């Protein structure tokens, strides 16, 4: 984005910026600065990611042998349930929006803050409260219903902490709603002069689409949790067959949120990838409007496909047909994005910096995840691989291969802006490679396992499945190491990393027009936008960075 900052502000590392403007715990816990709140989120989602990851490690250890010999079945069931709950509700859903979105949206649109800074802080407190409830439940044995909480198992047949975890998710849900609301209002009302909708970075479009889902979907899961709670505690029947209810209604309400929730995870990651591809190919995204509208298309269509989780759940086969064709349609905007990113590389000026490697990893893994999703939307295939490891592999390609690659790519890209520091190039490139390899070794065998018929959520399994399971467990070790590497060098760089300039990648975008780290009010001079995003042809190009190796 070309801007006319007049007079040209100094882009030297400032003496006072948002990180050192105030000190002490209070200055963080009561901050209303979106940048500081983003860092609060960064710390908290990392904690939950680590916990969820730890459980994944234990799950893979158990599955290295066919007999359930490491844990008792009820322990194993709690592990995979809590793994799902922590990863989905406390890492993936808040991940990119609440950390990167929070930090960057005001910067990208030239605003001083989000529209409702106090509500933004409230979101973080709600998230933390929800997380504490869930951790408290974890200390009391956790939950063993699966993260899907299917009735009547969850209401009548288990005596684990369903209620506590439900309350935790309920509270965290409101955090998600408020974040989405804040983003929508901010994007509508707080844009800098000249920043029209079609001059917005695609990251902002992705978050706008995400926010729509957060606003429209999350309340439905909230009320569904309340109904579960009423049924469990007060025996007020909604889903219980003994009380005249229909347990499949629960599945409809649950997936009405939880399917679009997948797009809460992936749309922001797509936004990140669009930024990375444009920056590191130094050219505009091929078909900007197509990509922008594809985000909105995914968000809208995403609300019409929930029934594809119930093809074999006693849903009428004609309902299955309708949901199948709608699910096919949602693949089209996703395909458009992949093609447009690829076309952007054509005649680009491509550098192989770390964030770009993550972006390419995203494109590859998301393509496989998306295409296997198309297989699952195909009725005849889903009837066989439903609830097998094929599903597990598919959604990990989307959520881990997609959302987490996007998240890490984004963190590597904006880390210099967030902290004002650079991280080691060699180690970061190595981490991208290790994660990519580890991921594929972990999850690719699971596609085969699934087609062979290994059901998900099995504590023990027939011995002929062992070879592929051992491969998967071995890959998980590599993947785990890959995730530890950024943790180490990011922490290292905060203290020892070389100082970053305002625009180390030579990127366009308003966030690079201010200092690294940005001042409390984001810009010393209110930016005015005069051109579409990614206009590299007229921008002063060239890295200012002094990389370290």
């Amino acid at each position, binding site marked *: 984005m070309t801007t006319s900052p007049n007079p040209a502000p100094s882009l030297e590392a400032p003496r006072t910026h948002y990180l050192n403007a105030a000190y002490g715990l209070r200055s963080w816990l009561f901050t209303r600065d979106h940048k500081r709140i983003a860092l609060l989120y960064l710390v908290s989602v990392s904690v939950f990611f680590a916990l969820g990851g730890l459980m994944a490690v234990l799950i893979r250890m158990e599955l290295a042998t066919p007999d359930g010999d490491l844990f008792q079945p009820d322990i194993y069931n709690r592990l995979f349930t809590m793994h799902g709950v922590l990863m989905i509700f406390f890492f993936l859903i808040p991940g990119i929006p609440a950390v990167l979105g929070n930090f960057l949206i005001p910067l990208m649109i030239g*605003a*001083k*803050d*989000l*529209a*409702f*800074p*106090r*509500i933004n802080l409230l979101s973080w407190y709600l998230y933390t409260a929800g997380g504490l409830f869930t951790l408290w439940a974890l200390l009391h044995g956790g939950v063993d219903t699966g993260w899907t909480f299917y009735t009547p198992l969850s209401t009548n047949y288990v005596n684990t902490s369903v209620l506590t975890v439900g309350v935790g998710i309920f509270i965290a849900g409101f955090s998600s*709603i408020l974040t989405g*609301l804040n983003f*929508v*209002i*901010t994007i*509508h*009302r*707080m844009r800098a002069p000249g920043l029209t909708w079609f001059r917005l970075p695609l990251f902002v479009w992705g978050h706008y689409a995400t926010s729509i889902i957060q*606003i*429209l*979907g*999350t*309340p*439905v899961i*909230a*009320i*569904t949790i*309340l*109904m579960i709670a*009423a049924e469990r505690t*007060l*025996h*007020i*029947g*909604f889903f219980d067959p003994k*009380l*005249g*209810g*229909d347990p499949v*209604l629960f599945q*409809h*309400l649950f997936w009405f949120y939880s399917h679009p929730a997948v797009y809460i995870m992936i749309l922001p990651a797509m936004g990140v990838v669009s930024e990375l591809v444009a920056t590191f190919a130094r050219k505009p995204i091929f078909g900007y409007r197509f990509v922008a509208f594809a985000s909105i298309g995914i968000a809208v269509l995403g609300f019409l496909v929930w029934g594809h989780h119930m093809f074999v759940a006693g849903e009428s086969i004609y309902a299955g047909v309708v949901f199948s064709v709608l699910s096919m349609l949602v693949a089209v905007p996703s395909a458009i994005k992949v093609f447009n990113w690829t076309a952007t590389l054509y005649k680009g000026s491509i550098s192989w910096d770390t964030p770009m490697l993550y972006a390419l990893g995203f494109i590859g893994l998301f393509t496989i995840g998306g295409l296997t999703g198309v297989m699952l939307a195909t009725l005849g295939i889903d009837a066989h691989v439903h609830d097998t490891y094929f599903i597990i592999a598919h959604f990990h390609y989307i959520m881990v291969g997609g959302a987490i690659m996007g998240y890490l790519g984004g963190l590597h890209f904006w880390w210099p802006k967030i902290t004002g520091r650079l991280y080691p190039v060699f180690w970061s490139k190595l981490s991208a490679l290790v994660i990519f390899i580890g991921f594929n070794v972990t999850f690719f065998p699971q596609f085969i396992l699934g087609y062979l018929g290994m059901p998900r959520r099995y504590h023990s399994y027939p011995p002929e499945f062992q070879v592929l399971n051992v491969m998967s467990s071995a890959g998980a070790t590599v993947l785990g190491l890959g995730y530890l590497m950024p943790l180490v060098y990011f922490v290292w760089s905060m203290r020892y990393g070389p100082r970053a300039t305002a625009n180390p990648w030579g990127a366009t975008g308003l966030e690079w027009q201010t200092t690294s780290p940005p001042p409390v*009010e984001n810009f010393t001079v209110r930016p005015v936008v005069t051109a579409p995003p990614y206009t590299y042809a007229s921008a002063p190009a060239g890295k200012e960075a002094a990389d370290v190796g």
Partner: protein
Amino acid sequence: MSVETHGASDLAHHFDSYEQQKESATLGMWTFLVTEILFFGGLFAAYSLYRSLYPEAFRAASHTLDIRLGALNTAVLIGSSLTMALAVRGGQIGKPKVTFGMLLATLALGSTFLGVKAIEYADKFHHHHVPGALFHFEGPDAVHAQLFFSLYFGMTGLHALHMIIGVAILAGMLRPALRGAWTPRNHNFLEGMGLYWHFVDLVWIFLFPLLYLIGRHH
């Protein structure tokens, strides 16, 4: 949503103008109400499904509700929407006393609604129409009649919870209203509260026919 407006200056630091601040607050409130619609939406979906599956049981259960109390409450709420609108008007034209008086009236009507609702609930307890171990219903399909009462308590309970929150906020607004906290230039909070109150009123306008009236002619 316009909690941002309190403080030394009533223009928050990150807004450029009062206009921008007001637009943000209004849009924020509307968006919040959209989430509220979907929050109630889950229960409405369950109601529609079960009503279509068990029309007879729902009709029989619906007959036990007191239509007079329901109608009275509808009138009370519509009246309270009027007083709420007048309270907002008082803010717009800068008449703190009007705002105060009308907020007080809204508060009174809202409390009346809750009082009537409490009477209805007590009646349900008395007749063992509360779902649970003690539930008892004279009719052919007691199981699905119980489902009706689950939804009745779920929907009216959630609505009543919104009323209680509304009444509490109204009570907190009385002193600031008298102090003249809302001026023609900035009455975003008052206006947001007005939208909220109308929304809660509107939910009841849907609940009343769905729970009390449909199938009454049989």
